[in-house]
């Protein structure tokens, strides 16, 4: 391997020339950022509600309640929440907590999920 071009830095530079043609434009980057952060917020809320529900009713009940609500609204928890909205799902979970543990628990779920 005696070709002077083939050291690591020059290979990287050749690759950089290739990459420059595949860069994102700033508008696309900005909208992707907003979309990812919105999705992350939804996941974060869902995770907080799950934790609280698990404390109030137990892990299995919490998981079953969330899965049942997701099925009812035909959403996939990790993918569709940001697009379809979190509120209907949260309302369901709040009602479930009210039925199982009383009104204050339902209100708490509603608050923590906002």
């Amino acid at each position, binding site marked *: 391997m005696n070709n002077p071009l083939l050291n690591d830095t020059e290979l990287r530079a050749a690759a950089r020339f290739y990459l420059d043609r*595949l860069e994102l434009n700033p508008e696309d980057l900005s909208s992707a950022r907003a979309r*990812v*952060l919105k*999705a*992350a917020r939804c996941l974060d809320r869902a995770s907080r509600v799950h934790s609280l529900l698990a404390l109030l009713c137990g892990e299995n009940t919490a998981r079953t309640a969330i899965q049942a609500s997701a099925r009812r609204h035909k959403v996939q928890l990790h*993918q569709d929440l940001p697009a379809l909205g979190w509120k209907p799902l949260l309302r369901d979970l709040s009602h479930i907590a009210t039925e199982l543990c009383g009104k204050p628990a339902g209100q708490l779920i509603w608050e923590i999920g906002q």
Partner: protein
Amino acid sequence: MTFVGRPHIFYILQSPFSTDSPPATDSFVQNFLQEPGESSFGDLFDQVYPRLYRYFAVRGFVGDSAAQLSHDVLLSVFRNSSSLRDHSKFYGWLFQIARNALLQHRRKNHRLDFSPNQLDPAAFFTPPPCESIFYDWIQCLPEDEREICVLRYVDDLDYQSISDSVGIPMGTVKWKLHQAKSKIANLLNAEVGVRR
């Protein structure tokens, strides 16, 4: 196979480039892993998303597909960050998730048309819109060496991260990279021989 000559060599020698992979202990990575939240995740996005997008764009996904896959990988990182115990392995872990997402996407969309070896991430590198010696060089490599070459020089990963990402020992990564460079060098020497 075309060997692109002198003008590009001048470009290579003059172009600015970074020589080091980002260290695995980047502050934005540490901040996010220690305290995952919207702000630290936003910082992580700014640094990592363009690299993920390039990862998919280089491997045959363009526009919305590359954006959607990068989106999914980042959300997966957000959901599962607590499972990463060794923070220094972040990049290997990240690109492993990206690789799995890519393979899953290909399986789902081309279940009937693809043979198993075509599912390799290196099987469909995107041709550049203009002449690129790097793209020409890697065409002479088998898929596994091509993938490692691209992870090293395009995705800018260190040996350990490449090893974690593709699931082979670090020694094998170094050996395959050496093999790849030898093949490219042989190709270039043969081209020069033909020209003479």
